[in-house]
């Protein structure tokens, strides 16, 4: 957490106090938040990246809150249904309409809960969307209907579409920086085991960093509707140890680039491109 860093030169006393206060508050809080491991998993897994574990714990805390509030409402309803079921259709109950202390209570308590959820969100979100410096960079390009993974500086390119889904190889325990773009429409880069997704937008380079801590091969898929073969836009992420990664990089240098170039030409001719409508040609 940045809360432990020293204040910059010339920081005011109040700034320093605030920083200390924040460190005091956030550190134990994030400790508690990120160790919710005795809670049930509420349908979510820890995933395989540094962030995905934090997301998992945040999910647990949100779920705990949701379960308690849901249970409270259901119990109140059940009690009301049993206790206040109409017994006599002539009976008219007391016509009470306001109870200000009660109304204030169920306004203030949810505000406190919301603030707690927001603080938890920030604790998990800030490191997740930070972009720390790293030597491993992958340029990911999404297109209808496949993926291209390029390793700049290494002349390594992996490309594949629909049924021949490509595999992105990355080293474990390393910050991997991704530059994500799209050639045509909006796609979604989603790896379930990362507990993470990000849009691939045309005209925008989306950047994010992840750090996979567990080796293995993980399924990925396009999540944003992108046309006819959206359902088949698969890819894989293979997390290997650093030595294997380096070996893989040198083995595929240029070879893969040449193959990719050939493949790209083939794709271009094979790719389904709908003919332009006559009206749009008119311009």
């Amino acid at each position, binding site marked *: 957490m940045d809360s432990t860093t020293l204040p910059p030169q010339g920081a005011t006393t109040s700034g320093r106090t605030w920083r200390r206060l924040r460190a005091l508050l956030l550190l134990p809080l994030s400790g508690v938040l990120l160790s919710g491991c005795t809670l049930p998993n509420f349908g979510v897994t820890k995933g395989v990246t540094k962030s995905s574990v934090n997301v998992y714990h945040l999910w647990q805390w949100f779920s705990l809150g949701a379960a308690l509030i849901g249970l409270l409402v259901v119990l109140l309803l059940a009690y009301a249904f049993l206790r206040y079921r109409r017994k006599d259709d002539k009976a008219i109950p007391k016509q009470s309409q306001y109870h200000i202390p009660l109304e204030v209570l169920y306004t203030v308590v949810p505000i406190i809960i919301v603030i707690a959820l927001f603080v938890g969100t920030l604790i998990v979100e800030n490191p997740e969307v930070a972009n720390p410096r790293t030597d491993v960079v992958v340029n990911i390009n999404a297109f209808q209907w496949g993926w291209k993974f390029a390793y700049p500086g290494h002349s390594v390119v992996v490309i594949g579409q629909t049924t021949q889904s490509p595999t992105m190889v990355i080293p474990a325990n390393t910050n991997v920086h991704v530059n994500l773009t799209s050639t045509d*429409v909006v796609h979604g880069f*989603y790896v379930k085991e990362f507990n993470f997704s990000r849009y691939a937008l045309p005209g925008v380079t989306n950047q994010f960093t992840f750090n996979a801590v567990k080796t293995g091969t993980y399924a990925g*898929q396009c999540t944003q509707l992108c046309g006819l073969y959206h359902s088949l836009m698969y890819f894989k992420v293979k997390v290997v140890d650093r030595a294997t990664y380096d070996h893989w990089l040198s083995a595929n240098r240029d070879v893969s680039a040449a193959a990719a170039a050939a493949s790209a030409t083939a794709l271009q001719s094979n790719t389904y491109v709908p003919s332009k409508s006559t009206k749009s040609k008119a311009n």
Partner: protein
Amino acid sequence: MSHTTATPISEHDSHDEHHGPSGLLNWLTTTDHKIIGLSYTITAVVMLVIGGALAELIRAQLASSNGHLVSFAQYNELFTMHGSVMIYLFAGPFAFGALANIIVPIQIGAPDMAFPRLNALSYWLYLTGSITMLLGFFTTGGAANFGWVGYAPLTSSLNAPGAGADLWIGGLMLTGFSAIFTGVNLVATIFYLRAPGMTMFRMPIFTWNLLVTAILILLAFPVLTAGLIMLYADRHFGTHIFSVAGGGVPVLWQHIFWFWGHPEVYILALPFFGMATEIIAVFSKKPVFGYKGMIFATISIAALSLGVWAHHMFTTGVVLLPFFSIMSLLIAVPTGIKIFNWIGTMWRGEIWFSTAMLMSIGFLITFLIGGLTGIYLASPPLDFFTHDTYFVVAHFHSVVMALVLAGMGGLYYWGPKITGYLLNERLGKAQFWFLFIGTQVFTFPLYILGLQGMPRRMAVYPLHKEWVSLNALSSVGALLIGVSTLFFVVNIIVSWKKYPAGDNPWDAQTLEWFTTSPPPHHNFYRLPQIRSERPTWDYNHPEHKSIAHGTHEE
């Protein structure tokens, strides 16, 4: 106004028969808000059935991992048109066109809407817009196929060259203008045509919610219409607003769409909240608990809803996450207030479990599920991994199915006022149980599938055979919902002109239950004294006035 008895309004008009055309010509030329509202209701329910049929096809396709019922191309048309029909042609028009049109003027003691001809125009625009959009199915390229949100550049003339896309845009513009005109009409009616004594804080919650909805319509719908014009210009006039090649910005569409789209969620929801509020109060024989708090909650939901649109865009990486996160989380507060107010209304009441009440309770529970799962999605880290998965699909289907439950409650509750006849309660309760249980069986597996990583809008999922059983279970739920609709149709046939309702079959509280069922041409022969938000109740039960907390007189 007299103090003890109801005041007749223009006695010589008591037998006023409206001397206009009758039959089909009357229906075509009417400006009577009740007939227009009835047309809206019937059209919207037909759209619900069409949208439901498309949903059943989707669920049939997904009941196996490599379904062959429809092709990939047809599947894209199916879910696009399912979403479009349900959101644009059913939920919205049913919420602010159908029941609002009939009930709001009567609830505030008005003879009609402020602009009756504009009201008729709204309906005809809605009908023609709906037909326009649905005609896409009959074009050679098929209907629109880019999802109901139509993310650019999938909607460009290159990616969606067919006429179906243009019909989708055209239909949406027509229904959009219909909504804007209805919004104008509702605001003018509520501000200017309230009966003497009907102050703002004596308006029933349903009318309040429709006022707030109408203001949201006026703020949000023009933005969508503008976006559609830009999209049409991109497709046909060579502009490059959403295309990168021409220097445009595709993600701009998402901003425009959701700037309309999130207020739209509340434009859909608030009228149904209002229906449930009225029904819960009437069938608990109590006033709405925390009436003023309820109104402030509605207003704050509407205000917040204008500042949360980018929570649909957390995964674009181009929006300010913390701002949209806290704004979205905050909506939970006024929504929670409403839920506790509903419980407070039932508390110490005499709860009558009629079909309308059961539907409202079903709404409350289903909406609770949809609301609680929505809170997760307001947190960007949690949204990142559930976005565009079935978790989101399950979340908003819990919400909209809750609205369908409330809407059905509204039909059972107000139907007798419009037609003069009650519906069969046993068939109604059977419909309720099928609808309620079907909804949970339909959505619950989808939550799990989403967390297991199933993305939405997939025609097939050949690599994930393990998802088949949950998908099949969800399809069974969808089938149960379909069966509930059959009960409704059978109920209408069986109950046709069978059980006369009388003026006030539920011992209800608001002004519409003071007049006859159906109401006369200009709604009222006489009005009671209006001294609270429950004039009919006050008239029928003068000894049982509302009491605030702390006052102990009985």
